[in-house]
C-alpha cells in the first residue's frame, strides 16, 4: 500500500505517581514521587515486520505495550496507527481503528475468563466489532480454532480443560477473531515450557505469513527475540538505548548496555567464552541516576555521561543513545 509505517511512536512517556498519601507527605515533608516507566521512546514498525522490545524487568516494556493498545494512557507523546493518531477517548472513529490491533498476554491462565466457554471467549470480539452474526459466528469460531491448531469442538470446553500451550493458542485465536493487522505480543511464551514455546513461536510465524500480520513482540528472552524479530529495540530504565537490525544487534552490539546484556546470557553454544563479569543491578526507577541512566554500571563511563542524557545517534546498525558513539560505532572498546 503506502510507505507510512503501520505504527509510529514519538516521544512516548509515562510517569506513575507513587507518592505517599497527602497526609504522610505533609507530616514527613516529602515531595511527590514519580516513577518513570517510559521516557521519550520513539520507534516505527513497518507493515509485515516483527519489531521486538527487549529489556530486563522494570525497563518499561509492558508499559509501552499497554500504552499502544490503550490500556494505559501516555503522559506525553504520540502514537500513530496507520497515520491516524490514536486518542482513546474518541468514540466511533477510534472503535474502527481499535478493531485493527489486538494483544496477546503473558499468562494464559489469567487472560481467559474461567467461567466462559472457549467459544464465547473467541466470539466476543466478533460480536463487539460486528464482524459476523448468527450461525456465522460459530462457524468463524470453529475456523479460528482450527487455524491455531485446535479442533472446532473445543469451543464447547472451558479454559481449565486446556494446558498452558493450548490456552495460549486460544488467546491467539481470540486475538485473530477481529481480523487485526497488528498484534502486540507481551511475553507470549515466557510462561510456557521450551517445547511448547517452540510450537507457539512457529504458529505465530505461520500466522504472520498467512495473514500478513505485523507484530510488536515484548520479551526478556534474547534468543526468542532474535529468532522472531526483524528489528529489535533495547530498553533500559524506560529509555530506548539501541535499535538495530535483529541479526546485527547480536553480532555488532553498539551500546555498552546491549553488550553487557549479550555477555550475560547463558548460551547453549558452549563456546567456552569467558564472560565479562556483569556489575551492579538495575537502579530504582523512582530516582534514576542522572545523565545516562546506565552510567553507574557502564564500563566506559566518562564525566559527560553523569551530567547529560545522551541523544540518539545513527550507528552502522541502526541507532543508539550513548555519548561515546560516533558514526562508525563506539569510540573506544
Amino acid at each position: 500500500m503506502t510507505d507510512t509505517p503501520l505504527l509510529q511512536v514519538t516521544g512516548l512517556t509515562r510517569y506513575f505517581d507513587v507518592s505517599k498519601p497527602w497526609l504522610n507527605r505533609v507530616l514527613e515533608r516529602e515531595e511527590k514521587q514519580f516513577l518513570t516507566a517510559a521516557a521519550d521512546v520513539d520507534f516505527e514498525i513497518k507493515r509485515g515486520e516483527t519489531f521486538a522490545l527487549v529489556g530486563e524487568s522494570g525497563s518499561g516494556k509492558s508499559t509501552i505495550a499497554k500504552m499502544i493498545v490503550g490500556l494505559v494512557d501516555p503522559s506525553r507523546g504520540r502514537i500513530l496507527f496507520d497515520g491516524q493518531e490514536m486518542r482513546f477517548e474518541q468514540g466511533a472513529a477510534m472503535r474502527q481503528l481499535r478493531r485493527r490491533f489486538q494483544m496477546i498476554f503473558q499468562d494464559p491462565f489469567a487472560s481467559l475468563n474461567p467461567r466462559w466457554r472457549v467459544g464465547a471467549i473467541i466470539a466476543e470480539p466478533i460480536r463487539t466489532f460486528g464482524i459476523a452474526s448468527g450461525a456465522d459466528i460459530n462457524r468463524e469460531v470453529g475456523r479460528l480454532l482450527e487455524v491455531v491448531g485446535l479442533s472446532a469442538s473445543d469451543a464447547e470446553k472451558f479454559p481449565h480443560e486446556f494446558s498452558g500451550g493450548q490456552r495460549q493458542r486460544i488467546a491467539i485465536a481470540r486475538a485473530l477473531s477481529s481480523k487485526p493487522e497488528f498484534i502486540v505480543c507481551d511475553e507470549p511464551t515466557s510462561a510456557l515450557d521450551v517445547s511448547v514455546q517452540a510450537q507457539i513461536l512457529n504458529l505465530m510465524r505461520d500466522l504472520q505469513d498467512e495473514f500478513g500480520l505485523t507484530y510488536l513482540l515484548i520479551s526478556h528472552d534474547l534468543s526468542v527475540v532474535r529468532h522472531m524479530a526483524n528489528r529489535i529495540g533495547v530498553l533500559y530504565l524506560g529509555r530506548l538505548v539501541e535499535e538495530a537490525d535483529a541479526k546485527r544487534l547480536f553480532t555488532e552490539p553498539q551500546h555498552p548496555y546491549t553488550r553487557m546484556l549479550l555477555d550475560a546470557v547463558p548460551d547453549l553454544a558452549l563456546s567456552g567464552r569467558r564472560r565479562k563479569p556483569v556489575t551492579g543491578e538495575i537502579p530504582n526507577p523512582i530516582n534514576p541516576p542522572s545523565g545516562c541512566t546506565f552510567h553507574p554500571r557502564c564500563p566506559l563511563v566518562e564525566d559527560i555521561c553523569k551530567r547529560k542524557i545522551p541523544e540518539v545517534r545513527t550507528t552502522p546498525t541502526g541507532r543508539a543513545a550513548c555519548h561515546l558513539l560516533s558514526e562508525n560505532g563506539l569510540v573506544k572498546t
Partner: protein
Amino acid sequence: MSGPSENPSDKTPLLSVRDLVVEFPTRRGTLRALDKVSFDIAQGEVLGMVGESGAGKSLTGAAIIGLLEPPGRIAGGEIRLRGERIDNLPREKMRRIRGRRIGMVFQDPLTSLNPLYTVAQQLIETIRTHMDVSEGEARKRAVALLDRVGIPAAARRIDDYPHHFSGGMRQRVVIALALCAEPELVLADEPTTALDVSVQAQIIDVLKEICAERGASVMLITHDMGVIAETADRVAVLYAGRVAEIGPVRDVIQAAEHPYTAGLMGSIPTLTQNAARLTQIPGSMPRLNAIPQGCAFNPRCPKVFDRCRTDRPELIDRDNGRHVSCWLYDAATQQVAHD
C-alpha cells in the same frame, strides 16, 4: 541393574539415587510422580537436572532432602549420601543432615528468608545450629561469607533485614545461608529463575565458584538449558518422572541420543544459529494419570517402533559416560538394524 557408575573402580559417589519411586495416593488411585529415577553425583561435581514443568525435577530434590509434601511419599528405591541411606531416616536425624550436609537454595529468595529477622540473626542461628561456635565467631564467619558471595560492605549490611536487599542480593544471602554450615552437597532449585539475566549470570558465577572452592557438589535443578550448559558438568534429562538421558553436558547438548532430548534442544532458539523454524515436538508431556504404556515418550516420538509401545526401556549404559533410556540403543534393536 544398569545404573550409572556401576564401575567398581569408581569411588563411592557423594550422592547416589537408585530406582527412586515417589507416589501420591489420591482418591482416584495412586499417581506415580517419579518412576525409578537413578543417578549419581560425584564429589565436587555439578549435576544439572532439566525437564519441563511436571517432569519431576523439583520432586527429586524434595525427596532427597526429605521434604516431600504429604501425601507424597517415597514408595521405592534408595538415596545414599556417601554410601549411607538417608531416605528412611527418622525426621530428627534428617533434620540434622539438612542444612548441615545438604544446603538448599530455592527459587524465590524472598520466601527463603524470614522477613522478621535480620540477615545476621538468620545466618548466626544457622551456623550455631550446625556448628559448635561462639556467637562472636559465628558472626565473624557470617560476615566473611557475605563478603565472599559479593555483598558490598558486608560488615554493615549484615544487620539489615531481607527487604533492604534487592532480588539479586537476596539470592546471594540465600547462597550464603546454604553454605554457612559447609555442606557437602548444595541443592539449588531454579536459583536464578526469578532474576533478570544480567543478575542471573552473577549468581551462577558465585554459586559455581564458591562450591568449587569448598569442594561441594551441586545439584542444579532448572528448566533453562543455557544455565545448565554454562554451569553443569553432567546433565540428567527428566521426562514424565523418568530419566531420559544422563551424560556429560557437552555430549548431551550437542549430540543428544534420546529423541526427547534431541527435540528439546532443537526447540530452543539460540543466539548464534539461524533457523527458519524451530523443531517442534508435537503434543505435550502426559499427565501423571495418563502416562502411556512402554516408553513414556512414545506417542510424541518421531522414531517410535513397536517395542516402545509395550516395554519400558531401562537406562542403557552407552560406555562413554552416557546413559540413555531408549530402545534405539538396545543391543537387540541395533542388531536388527544392522541385519
